[in-house]
């Protein structure tokens, strides 16, 4: 166990599924060749199959403290980004050609069941579930690796893969019950979310949390009574781990979503929430009942004008307060480390679509 643990809380009442977090992560970390299929941050619709598709039935984790066998997800399970025949359609000079993904033989994309959700009209429902590596206190990936290539940082509990030690055996992929580890076929190594540790080291929060337009993500130390994480997880107990039964003690927590009332056959609102509480319990455990009750109670309190520390925190009146001790602006840190003149590109070339770089180019910040 590490001395301290950084953690994240995601308020599912505020996530709008815009994927800004996904893109922030993608553009920052997974632009190397061999990483095309990787989305260290994903946002999926629930109820749904998630990414990789059906990850909740792929095994791994611990049961009664014993490591459980798991399935190794492949590129198709994660959902490959499709290649389209834009060139042929727009410039090929053929009138009878239509747009096709992967030559018409595409598999499921990474967000295949987006916005489908569950339930029947008028009680259909869905919410978004963003996921990153949980940087678990009891990481199944770390314990499975025969190479000791996975470590948990003592100072903040961030779980990292040492790519020089990794041999691409992929036991970590099998053992992780959240299936948040990817395999880079080109480099022969496993790769995953690094909790933006180079930013954390400089006091800057993760890219996914800082870029989030919905102010969904809180970041801080689990044991900091002045920080948002401790207040949401320990004090108010409204932030719960996903699938705690997997036994890895994840350090990403979720505020479960409230929902409008279910409508009965006559069209009248009932006392039941639209999103079935038992479904939320299947994801976040029995703590859902108390968490939802607390949210309802504090919301009512706020409405009465009595004030609520919890509501003020969840509303995120002060944006930077969401990030505990990691409130620095990336620019502030970057100014201390200017890009060498010979590595700078004209501004016009910096703004571009995602490009994939070699490992060497990536080490230089994507500059050749």
């Amino acid at each position, binding site marked *: 166990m590490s001395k301290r643990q950084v953690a994240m809380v995601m308020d599912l009442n505020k996530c709008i599924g815009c994927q800004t977090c996904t893109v922030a992560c993608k553009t920052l970390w997974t632009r190397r060749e061999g990483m095309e299929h990787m989305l260290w941050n994903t946002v999926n619709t629930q109820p749904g199959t998630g990414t990789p598709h059906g990850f909740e039935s792929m095994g791994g984790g611990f049961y009664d403290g014993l*490591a459980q066998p798991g399935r190794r997800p492949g590129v198709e399970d994660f959902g490959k980004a499709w290649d389209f025949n834009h060139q042929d359609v727009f410039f090929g000079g053929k009138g009878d050609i239509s747009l096709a993904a992967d030559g018409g033989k595409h598999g499921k994309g990474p967000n295949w069941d987006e916005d489908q959700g569950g339930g029947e009209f008028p009680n259909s429902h869905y919410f978004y579930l963003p996921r990153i590596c949980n940087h678990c206190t009891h990481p*199944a990936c770390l*314990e*499975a690796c*025969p190479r000791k290539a996975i470590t948990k940082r003592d100072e903040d509990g961030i779980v990292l893969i040492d790519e020089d030690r990794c041999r691409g*055996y992929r*036991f970590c992929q*099998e053992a992780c019950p959240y299936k948040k580890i990817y395999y880079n076929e080109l480099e022969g190594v496993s790769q995953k979310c690094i909790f933006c540790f180079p930013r954390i080291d400089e006091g800057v929060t993760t890219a996914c949390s800082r870029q989030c337009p919905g102010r969904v993500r809180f970041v801080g130390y689990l044991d900091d009574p002045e920080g948002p994480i401790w207040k949401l997880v320990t004090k108010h107990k409204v932030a719960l781990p996903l699938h705690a039964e997997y036994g890895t003690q994840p350090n990403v927590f979720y505020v479960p979503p409230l929902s409008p009332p279910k409508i009965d056959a006559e069209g009248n609102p009932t006392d039941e929430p639209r999103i079935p509480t038992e479904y939320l319990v299947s994801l976040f455990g029995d703590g859902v009942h108390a968490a939802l009750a607390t949210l309802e109670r504090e919301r009512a309190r706020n409405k009465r004008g009595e004030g609520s520390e919890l509501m003020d925190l969840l509303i995120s009146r002060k944006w930077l307060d969401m990030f505990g001790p990691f409130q620095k602006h990336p620019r502030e840190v970057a100014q201390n480390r200017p890009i060498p003149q010979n590595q700078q590109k004209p501004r016009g070339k910096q703004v571009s679509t995602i490009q994939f770089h070699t490992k060497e180019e990536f080490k230089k910040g994507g500059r050749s």
Partner: protein
Amino acid sequence: MKTRRVGDVAPLLDPTDPGWSAAPVERIGMMPTPLAMQPTEYIRNSWKDRAYGATAAIEVAAVHDGSRWALRAVWNGVSPAGKDFPDALAIALPVRGEPVLVLMGAPDAPIHFLRWQANKPGAKSQLATGIGRSAPGPALDCSARAHAEGGRWQVVVSRPLGGAGDVAPLLAGATTGIGFAVWVGGNDERGGIKAFSIDWAELVLDT
């Protein structure tokens, strides 16, 4: 196991070269690595009901020409294409001390491996100082060529004679030990999940 001296090993780097028929072939028995010795609980649990290391034996022959040594290994078990892990062969040679093959050596008694795998050209030099403790080995002009036919691999691995530092000594007229490991990629075999040759076989090099 005898390493016959020949005039030139160069043509024998091709595993299908007819010259190999003149080299004495030895059958080396193999067995699965013990499950209890797998380094993590996850691996032990996930393989306890699954067969691995089923390659019962490999046939080996070796030659040298005074400057280069070549070994040809033949065994059954060519995996279909498109699997996650490659078929592979490793040749183990003791560097110094008295390393235990099944323990993959020790810090003061390393083992020098020459590893071939079906999805990459050539051979890799690796140095092991214990289970799960292998690292890139000393720079060495090693090579490998492979041929698959009728479900059988024929692989020739070669390296220069000599030895210094962490390069396992192979000297004309001398005797050392040799061990083997085989991975069937189609059965998800990788790392410690493999067949191995139990203990050192004696390797005698003609003067």
